[in-house]
């Protein structure tokens, strides 16, 4: 189902519509088919204008079985189109989904345009006579039948999908034939069946000129890391342990060895981060990727990186928790962990991506800060950004920022090399990598004497070092863009967001403004330090709303830091916000 969704998305992207997707699948690999927890869905929203979210209420739902209907029918807009695979609506499947009678026949779907289509049997029939294809395999091709039907319904270009089928199944020509036939049969069914009176043409969206591609958050992240390696001139080393929803980055980087990328699948999350830090000591761009349950295990390495003052990128693709939680579902509840989840005073800069394609820029920005300030940096993404995709105006490589750095090569004092003598502007210490003659030095987790880096238990020195490390991270505020506010009409209510709620907040603000109300929005891409004008921005508004997919973590920080009585809108359903619910919450606050 995910593959089918991906293909439809590609056809739509190539056609030139703007789009946003929401893949929604269980953590289990082969979850029992037909069961409610086993439903795998793919939501795609496309339009002839720019859109910001995968949509609150789909206009069309394709339900391959009763369980899929049950799980998703609540989202389908009234008057929407339902295409149901009648072959799967048998007694057993109805029972599994908890239906007492067949909803297609009992009138309970009267609010929708229901198209009963015998997807499975028509597919099997269409594939009869292909040698080497079992009836089970033929039945599996029904997803391509459905894709063909949907492609007809929305006039999607089909060449990409036909080419994809040939490439993907090249090793089994009979499967290429089966899927191609199923796809075409679905298309033809749409065209010839009188069941579908009309089809829809959605013109390409008007967008900025340039070359586009479709990109998911994890792919953008992968490319961002490779770009950061090129732009910094540092070889990329990724230490990672497989974990949903971050594993794509390990898998994709492993395919990019010709970029000099070293990927190390470690024995555990701890070793993954440790190896990345070891590589950073040697002069590499050290990166470790994980999700919340893995990030907790990396805390000690991050703490060491804080005191060693070496660059290290720690990427947290957040998922619903606590503990194992819901591995494939998004949440934004790791913010306080990455800020404070370490022993002692241990400040770490935090960068957050807001859109799938924005993961590319966020990776470069996080690497820039890490390398320039010799510090570990957290980069936050989440399961929604990771798996969701959108069209991306491919940036001109020449316009990407220069984040190169220099290693120390000479002693910085008459007495020799002082590994903790700081750059007065950035407070960063020199990065002297092994192999550099005359700069041999030792660093470690014990408190260090200012400048010399020698072990020190001196009370005054410890106080000074704690404050220096804090000042270094706080000082980054001068080196990041100010918080931008979108306030066309002079509102008295501000909606402040961070991370993947960007699209939903933007869409909600449009609705609120369309209703004649005024609202301002601002979105944080840096969570530590905050942009230097953040206090001014939040204090400039009478009312501040902070919508988050957690119980109010940024809100707590805003209140604590700026003494502003910010309100929250918080949901932790393992799903992104709907624009409508957010618009209602904003409207209520504006009107209050």
């Amino acid at each position, binding site marked *: 189902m995910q593959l089918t969704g991906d293909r439809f998305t590609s056809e739509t992207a190539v056609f030139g519509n703007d789009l946003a997707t929401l893949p929604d699948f269980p953590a289990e690999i082969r979850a029992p088919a037909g069961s409610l927890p086993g439903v795998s869905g793919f939501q795609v929203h496309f339009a002839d204008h720019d859109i910001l979210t995968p949509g609150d209420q789909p206009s069309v739902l394709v339900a391959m079985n009763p369980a899929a209907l049950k799980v998703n029918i609540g989202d389908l807009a009234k008057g929407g189109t339902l295409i149901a695979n009648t072959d799967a609506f048998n007694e057993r499947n109805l029972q599994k989904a908890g239906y007492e009678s067949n909803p297609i026949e009992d009138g309970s779907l009267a609010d929708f345009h229901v198209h009963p289509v015998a997807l499975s049997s028509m597919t099997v029939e269409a594939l009869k006579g292909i040698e080497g294809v079992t009836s089970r395999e033929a039945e599996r091709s029904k997803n391509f039948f459905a894709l063909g039907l949907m492609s007809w319904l929305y006039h999607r270009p089909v060449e990409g999908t036909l080419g994809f089928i040939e490439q993907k199944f090249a090793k089994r020509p009979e499967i290429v034939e089966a899927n191609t036939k199923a796809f075409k049969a679905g298309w033809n069914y749409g065209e010839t069946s009188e069941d579908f009176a009309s089809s829809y043409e959605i013109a390409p969206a008007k967008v900025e000129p340039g070359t586009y591609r479709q990109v998911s958050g994890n792919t953008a992240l992968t490319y961002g890391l490779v770009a950061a390696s090129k732009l910094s001139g540092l070889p990329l080393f990724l230490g990672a342990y497989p974990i949903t929803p971050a594993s794509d980055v390990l898998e994709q980087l492993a395919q990019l060895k*010709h970029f000099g990328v070293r990927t190390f699948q470690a024995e555990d999350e701890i070793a993954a981060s440790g190896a990345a830090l070891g*590589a950073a000591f040697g002069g590499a761009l050290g990166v470790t990727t994980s999700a919340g349950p893995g990030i907790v295990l990396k805390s000690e390495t991050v703490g060491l990186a804080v005191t060693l003052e070496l660059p290290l990128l720690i990427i947290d693709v957040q998922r619903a928790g606590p503990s194992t939680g819901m591995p494939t579902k998004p949440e934004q509840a790791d913010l306080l962990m990455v800020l404070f989840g370490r022993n002692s005073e241990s400040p770490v800069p935090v960068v957050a991506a807001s859109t799938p394609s924005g993961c590319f820029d966020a990776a470069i920005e996080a690497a820039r800060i890490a390398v320039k300030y010799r510090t570990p940096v957290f980069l936050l993404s989440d399961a929604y950004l990771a798996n969701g995709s959108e069209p991306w105006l491919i940036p001109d490589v020449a316009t990407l920022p220069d984040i190169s750095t220099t290693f120390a090569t000479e002693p910085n004092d008459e007495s020799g090399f002082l590994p903790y003598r700081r750059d007065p502007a950035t407070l960063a210490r020199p990065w002297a990598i092994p192999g550099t003659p005359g700069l041999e030095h030792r660093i470690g987790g014990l408190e260090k004497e200012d400048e010399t880096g020698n072990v020190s238990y001196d009370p005054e020195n410890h106080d000074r070092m704690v404050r220096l490390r804090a000042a270094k991270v706080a000082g980054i505020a001068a080196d990041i863009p100010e918080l931008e506010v979108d306030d066309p009409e002079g509102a008295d209510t501000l909606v402040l967001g961070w991370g993947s709620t960007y699209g939903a907040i933007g869409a909600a603000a449009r609705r609120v403004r369309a209703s004649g109300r005024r609202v301002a929005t601002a979105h944080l891409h840096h969570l530590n330090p905050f942009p230097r004008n953040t206090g001014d921005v939040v204090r400039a508004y009478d009312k501040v709303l902070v919508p988050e997919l957690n119980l109010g973590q940024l809100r707590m920080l805003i209140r604590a830091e700026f003494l502003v009585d910010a309100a929250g809108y918080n949901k932790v359903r393992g799903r992104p916000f709907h624009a409508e619910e957010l618009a209602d919450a904003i409207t209520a606050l504006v009107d209050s």
Partner: protein
Amino acid sequence: MSHGNGNLVQLTGKDFKSDQEVRWCPGCGDYAILNVIQGFMPELGLSRERIVFVSGIGCAARFPYYMQTYGMHSIHGRAPAIATGLAVTRPDLSVWVVTGDGDALSIGGNHLIHALRRNVNVKILLFNNEIYGLTKGQYSPTSRVGKVTKSTPMGSLDYPFNPLSVAIGAEASFVARAIDTDKKGLTEVLDAAARHRGSAFVEILQNCNIYNDGAFDFVREEKGNRVYLEDGARIRFGVDSEKGVQQYPDGSLRVVDVSEAGENSLLVHDASHAQASLAFALSRITFETHGAVPLGVFRSVDRPVYDDLMSEQLEAAREQSGEGQLEALLHSGDTWTVS
């Protein structure tokens, strides 16, 4: 003094002493080990900047501070993982891990076994004193059953690890043992470890004179109990070499009187044997079971080195696809142009 082009330089042990005051307890076995290692370093034929010592936490882990090389005192148990990242990205360096019995076999057990099975090019020196010293005297994973310590007032219940058996079981390609005060034996083992490409695991029996004094007296003091392993030679030991090691048909080993058993019945040591079972059987010879302790190189076999394999894959990928171009990567897959 070294001047950095990686060429052969004439250094002495003194050149490897850092300006930091050594702070182990007076009489600690670590002093002897430090002296031997500093004295051995010039034999590497590398200038100092090419050498890195990485350690975890514990008494032994202070080691890097005292070496005039690059060094990192890291996290409890994690040194093999950190050293792995350094070694695979910097094959030009000589990377050494200094660890202890708690660091390597308790909190860091996982990293140790995985570094060994991968055969990363790091030299791992485990200072085994069978006690937690830095935390002031709790039992360790190598403490013997019944050991009375601060945390085991009625005696330890834990069955201990045999460090060499663990290493051999973890597919280590080089395994050796030496004694802190045995300068000649330790130097020979260090030399063999340094020349071995891949992971080298060296257990160094080290006396903690504060919390576990005399734990190894049966071999530190009683030289007749030392079984020096010599590749290709029959295994003999004792004050007058009067004892030897014989192999039972089931593969296990026993100690015999040479005069009774005859020279020709003794086992011939073969450190590079394809099977690890011989080295494993030797690792099971202990003072408690056999009244003797083997020393020297138990096992040394050639196996592909992780760092080399990774570099080779990068080269192969470049040959196949050419040097990666960012522009091409960003434009890979389906693209469309809007004018």
